[in-house]
């Protein structure tokens, strides 16, 4: 089914009484896919016959934007497709995702990028923006077609070899210099491969020592973050640090920001809540890269997200088919699902615990990810004239995660059976409802 076949919500819609991203209760009037009025008097401007949606008790956020998603298409359509992954995104409250480049083939040419963009448009649940590879085949040797990807229909602005680190300092420097001309940013998977060897699969510490698992030391991340921060300063270019996982990285970022260096950073929901001790039973569902860290790191990440040292939350949604996870721990695939649970995790850890407001959630999960990715049609807030990308949240709802109900093709869900506080009620992309209570529009018959 193409987006054109779907009914578009053209009739005006009035959402009443929702808390507008922490700014207090108000109404939102949506006309022709845009926000036509917002606030206390929006209802007065509603045309005759406008549909009403009761938003009382709900939080209205600008549509969520995920800077770090793996959609597996092309190459591993058995694990996820752009259709299923973007459906999961919509169910999770997202209206845009950035699809990482480590597909097969790798997104390292304009043609590959445009193909992903087109498939996203056809699926129609969220805007799917391809991330371009920094280097050809993610090999950290030759630059990918950065400029052609930027000039393509997909307008690529975020480049990443995610899954691998651009570990060669000279290549990283050249890439940073090159993307400056079109305002690109490099999202770095910070992992020094000489410090965290190819089999590293567990935070290096007491538990990895006891379990006999190859350790992934925090310094392997921190040393690359420190190097890249200095390269960003040297080149005057933009670096974004993907999935920050240690307190040491936070210290480096805090210093860098104080120096005025143009660096941004993301943290995943799982690094905000799950800790390395979950690995004691060798369950590969908890195997992720970078690995889950100890509680001290988790605390530092929460604090850094709350005070803005870490700019945004990104899911690192990484679907895998069953058999790729059912190997011995060191052989199992890295990664966990995240799109459908991200908002609930952030709500539980940060909002319900009083560390962040809903306005902070709007900033860290919509406005700033869109700004970092230079998206013009997303993350603009609930302001008049902005596209009606709106996510309604039920802040008090208790969500017991059930892996079986996911829109994703995969089931590697570390949250299964956990109770979280706060859930996505409704997602709207340019005025059209894309998901409601976890069910995506058009998903069934």
């Amino acid at each position: 089914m193409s987006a054109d076949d779907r009914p578009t919500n053209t009739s005006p819609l009035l959402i009443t009484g929702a808390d507008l991203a922490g700014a207090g209760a108000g109404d939102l009037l949506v006309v022709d896919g845009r926000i036509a009025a917002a606030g206390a008097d929006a209802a007065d401007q509603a045309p005759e016959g406008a549909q009403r949606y009761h938003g009382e008790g709900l939080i209205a956020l600008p549509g969520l934007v995920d800077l770090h998603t793996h959609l597996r298409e092309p190459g591993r359509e058995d694990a996820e497709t752009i259709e299923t992954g973007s459906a999961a995104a919509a169910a999770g409250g997202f209206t845009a995702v950035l699809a990482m480049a480590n597909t097969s083939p790798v997104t390292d040419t304009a043609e590959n990028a445009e193909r992903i963009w087109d498939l996203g448009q056809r699926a129609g649940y969220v805007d799917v923006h391809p991330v371009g590879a920094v280097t050809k085949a993610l090999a950290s040797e030759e630059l990918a077609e950065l400029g052609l990807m930027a000039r393509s229909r997909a307008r690529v602005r975020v480049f990443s070899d995610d899954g691998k680190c651009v570990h060669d300092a000279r290549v990283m420097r050249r890439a940073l210099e090159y993307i400056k001309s079109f305002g690109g940013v490099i999202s770095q998977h910070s992992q020094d491969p000489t410090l965290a060897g190819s089999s590293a699969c567990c935070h290096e510490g007491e538990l990895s020592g006891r379990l006999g698992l190859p350790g992934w030391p925090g310094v392997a991340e921190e040393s690359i973050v420190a190097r890249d921060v200095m390269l960003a300063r040297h080149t005057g270019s933009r670096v974004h640090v993907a999935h920050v996982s240690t307190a040491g990285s936070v210290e480096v970022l805090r210093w860098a920001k104080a120096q005025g260096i143009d660096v941004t950073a993301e943290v995943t929901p799982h690094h905000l809540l799950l800790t390395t001790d979950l690995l004691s039973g060798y369950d590969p569902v908890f195997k992720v890269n970078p690995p889950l860290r100890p509680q001290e790191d988790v605390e530092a990440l929460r604090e850094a997200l709350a005070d803005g040292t870490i700019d945004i939350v990104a899911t690192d949604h990484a679907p895998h088919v069953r058999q790729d996870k059912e190997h011995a721990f060191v052989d199992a695939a890295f990664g966990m699902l995240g799109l459908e649970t991200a908002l609930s995790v952030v709500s539980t850890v940060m909002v319900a615990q009083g560390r962040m407001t809903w306005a902070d959630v709007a900033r860290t999960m919509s406005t700033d990810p869109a700004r970092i990715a230079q998206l013009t049609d997303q993350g603009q807030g609930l302001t008049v004239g902005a596209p009606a990308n709106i996510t309604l949240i039920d802040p008090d709802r208790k969500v017991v995660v059930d892996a079986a109900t996911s829109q994703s093709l995969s089931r590697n869900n570390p949250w299964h059976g956990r109770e979280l506080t706060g859930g996505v009620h409704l997602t709207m992309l340019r005025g059209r409802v894309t998901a409601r209570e976890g069910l995506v529009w058009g998903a069934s018959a």
Partner: protein
Amino acid sequence: MKHLLSIADLSRDEINEILDTAVSMHEVQHRDVKKLPTLRGRTIINFFFEDSTRTRSSFELAGKWLSADTINLTGKGTSVSKGESLRDTVKTIDAMGVDMMIIRHMASGAPAQIAQWTNCSIVNAGDGTHEHPSQALLDAYTMRQRLGDLEGRHVALVGDLTHSRVFRSNVLCLTTLGAKVTLVAPATLMPAGIGAWAQADGIELSHDLDAVLPTVDAVMMLRVQRERMSGGFFPTAREYAVTYGLTKARLGLLPDHAVICHPGPMNRGLEISGDAADAAQSLVLDQVSAGVAIRMSILYHLLSGERSGDQSGEGSAS
């Protein structure tokens, strides 16, 4: 007790029970007809994903002498590339209806994962750099035969701790039995987080073998993997042998009653000199001999049904 995955699963009483049973099993080993009917009709698979002639034949003999039907299977290194998952592989075997799988795998934790996926009893016969519980039990057995109760005894474990599953099981076994343990190795061969670990478990750490040896009742020399030598863990084999090897000169530092263990295979001239390996106080061959008895005891405790009814402890406070 259904599985033996880690020494941590065993209480002190359970360890002692296994060691005590092994004493009588050891006697069987010296009979002309080495056959007990205990496990008649039970089926045991030795599923070795990684080669180990010594451990496999020891388990195989243990099963046969207890009259179990035993089958050996070898898995390929890893089936990741072949599309079949480890779970699929063991589910296939499980579906044939075996009672026990004895698993040797190059990946830490594989037996624990397999225990989640099957119904049969799982024995960890060595997993990656994690554990080798039957080895630790036979080591404790051998030391106990010579030294008596290990409570309060001082044992030094020396060498490549990071990559040693023997060390991980031994340290748990010995401390559970009340022995004092000192680990001796260069910092590069001590596992991650050993400081916190040692503190939590009351273990001593040292880089000075000469200072430790005069205080021990037993010293266990661990094998240095040849491939570690060029991996930057220590400068040269010569430096290692001089600093951490049980040389002939160091034999003189040991108290007269102290014993020497090595789980084998030995690098003579590296972690242990020929003189030490063949010394009167060396228990290296006793360890091998005890291996079958210990494994018979393990199989007996896991497979002979509920704890035999002749125990009177039922219902007593515990």
